[in-house]
């Protein structure tokens, strides 16, 4: 899993060195660690046995520095090579972005190479990753030893996917950095391919310019959960005019209630001319209604005559006479949705802003929309997610959540302690067992001899459990 952090302009990728035992995986990392310049050197973490065999993994963060404004970091891991450490190998492979297979070039190690490669393929398959699709290079290590297999032979045996392969003598540092550079480039290329594929899938070139700038084109109904793009294919950027750049570094401190400016947000769409579509316009808040101060209205939208598309984050600006201002929170109103059956009452809970309950994961019906009193748009789940994506509910969610925590905490502190139901259960509660002898509380746990003998008689259970009928007595 590569992570890209636009806040710190940082990209982080995970590269795992895999291979049979004693093939030189840890040596690769040790050489890299030794050669890292001191100013960027980090500690290398090795979870090893007393004999310096890798027990869990080795970990070396490699900071490449800033590249085009992005701090690019590789996290290099090794796995234990021994066959019986497969469980830990599998754990380390989680979220891998690139794999270096360090093969032992000695002829008698060929079978171990093959077994390890098969094991790599199986372990990746458990994470849903195909070895042929993940960034992958081979390193033929120990080329300085006598009796090693030729490169052609190794290629034929273990280079199943015809990936780049490199000869190496890891303990001397030969071939180590060539391998690292190769896998680094392939990982970044794959990352860019995903980026390009996402860009092209999100902005189809057939859209007119007015729509191609929308970060989130409105999905077709029922296709809210579209599958990710299958295999990243590098493609030219389909649109000529790039959308407004995200001011990541220069963004000011986040003001709490307004919508965060730098999230990919649909620009206010042209104002639709839909007064006739709404038979009863939504009434504005009555005079004297409590004012909702949690949100400030977004900047006004430029009026336009046409209506290319409606966004869930639509909010009319002050220059829109057709739609009267509504007092509730923006962001969840869909102008195309049928009007509510009754005029919308003043929203409950606006006084003092009763924070909405935290919506449960898995999208309960209308959790966020119901809490804000807004009209749900089609599927509740879709509306909630899209509104969060638009940033309209995010600050309030968090503020409400934190306010709720604090309120609960203060209530717990101020409220009198509830009477404990179990206070003195053992010592002070009078024992109800009439057979108890003395004050021994444990005596109630045992049966008296009379009770025991009555239970042991064969006909005791029917008479104890059910009354006999008149004819049976």
């Amino acid at each position, binding site marked *: *899993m*590569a992570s*890209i*952090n*636009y*806040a*710190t302009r940082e*990209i982080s990728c*995970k590269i795992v060195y895999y291979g049979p035992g004693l093939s030189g995986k840890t040596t690769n990392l040790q050489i890299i660690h030794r*050669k890292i*310049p001191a100013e*960027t050197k*980090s*500690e290398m*973490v090795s979870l090893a046995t007393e004999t310096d065999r890798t027990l*869990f*993994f080795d*970990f070396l*963060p490699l900071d*490449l*520095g800033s*590249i*085009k404004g992005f701090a690019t970091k590789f*996290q290099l891991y090794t796995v234990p090579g021994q066959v019986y450490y497969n*469980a830990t190998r599998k*754990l380390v492979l989680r*979220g891998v972005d690139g794999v270096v297979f360090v093969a032992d070039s000695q002829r008698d190690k060929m079978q171990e190479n093959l077994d390890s490669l098969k094991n790599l393929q199986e372990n990746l398959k458990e*994470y849903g*990753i195909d070895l042929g699709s993940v960034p992958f290079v081979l390193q033929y290590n120990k080329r300085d030893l006598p009796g090693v297999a030729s490169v052609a032979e190794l290629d034929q045996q273990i280079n199943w996917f015809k990936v780049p392969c490199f000869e190496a003598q890891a303990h001397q*540092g030969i071939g180590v*950095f060539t391998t*690292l*550079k190769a896998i*680094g480039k392939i990982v*970044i290329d794959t990352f*860019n391919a*995903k*980026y390009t594929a*996402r*860009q092209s899938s999100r902005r189809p070139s057939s859209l007119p310019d007015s729509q191609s700038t929308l*970060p*989130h084109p409105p999905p077709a109904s029922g296709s809210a959960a579209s599958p*990710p793009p299958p295999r990243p294919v590098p493609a030219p*950027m389909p649109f000529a005019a*790039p959308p407004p*750049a*995200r001011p*990541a570094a220069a*963004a000011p401190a*986040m003001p709490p209630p307004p919508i*965060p400016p*730098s*999230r990919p947000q649909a620009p206010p769409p042209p104002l639709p001319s839909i007064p006739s579509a709404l038979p009863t316009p939504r009434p504005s808040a009555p005079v004297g209604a409590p004012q909702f101060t949690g949100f400030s209205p977004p900047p006004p939208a430029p009026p336009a005559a046409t209506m290319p598309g409606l966004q869930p984050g639509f909010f009319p600006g002050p220059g829109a006479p057709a739609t009267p201002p509504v007092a509730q929170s923006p962001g969840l109103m869909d102008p195309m949705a049928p009007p509510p059956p009754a005029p919308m009452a003043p929203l409950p809970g606006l006084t003092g802003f009763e924070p909405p309950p*935290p919506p449960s994961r898995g999208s309960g019906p209308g959790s966020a929309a119901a809490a804000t009193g807004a009209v749900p748009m089609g599927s509740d789940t879709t509306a909630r*997610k899209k509104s*969060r994506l638009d940033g309209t509910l*995010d600050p309030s969610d*968090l503020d409400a*959540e934190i306010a709720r*925590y604090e309120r609960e905490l203060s209530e717990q502190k101020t409220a009198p302690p509830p009477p404990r139901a179990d206070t003195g259960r053992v010592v002070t509660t009078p024992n109800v067992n009439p057979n108890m002898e003395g004050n021994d509380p444990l005596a109630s746990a045992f049966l008296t001899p009379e009770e025991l003998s009555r239970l042991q008689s064969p006909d005791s259970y029917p008479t104890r459990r059910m009354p006999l009928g008149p004819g049976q007595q």
Partner: protein
Amino acid sequence: MANYILYKEDIDRLNKVLGHLLSSASATFVLLVHKDGNLLANQGYTKAFDTTALAALAAGSYAATRAIAQMIGENEFTVLFHKGHTDNIHISLVDEDCILVLVFDDRTNPGLVRLESEKAIKGVNLILEDIRHNEFTDLESAPPKSDSVGQQMERLFPGL
């Protein structure tokens, strides 16, 4: 597996929740760690610690414990607690992808840390749910190309 794309407002929101947790639980620092070992956000006094390695090790520890849990019939353990002489680590499961790591000393107690962690996890879950839907935005924020990475590696390891 989906990439994680974190924007400034995501980090701000995470930091807000984590900061609240930090003060309410009186912890030393708190990390939000992906189970792959990536550090997503942190709050508190972290300058004296290598948080990158700490995140990787915490993820490894959690993964190992999860494997143990599965051996005894559990899917995973939701809370891990490592007690030291003065400093302790409390690791709790956030969702299927992330864990929350709290480091605290004897100025607070594990019960409070656990209580506050459970509260904060709800807020973190909300944010992570949004982060999963993040997309790349525009060309200007595109990640660097492989040529640049190769050049940077040449500068980092000249002649190797």
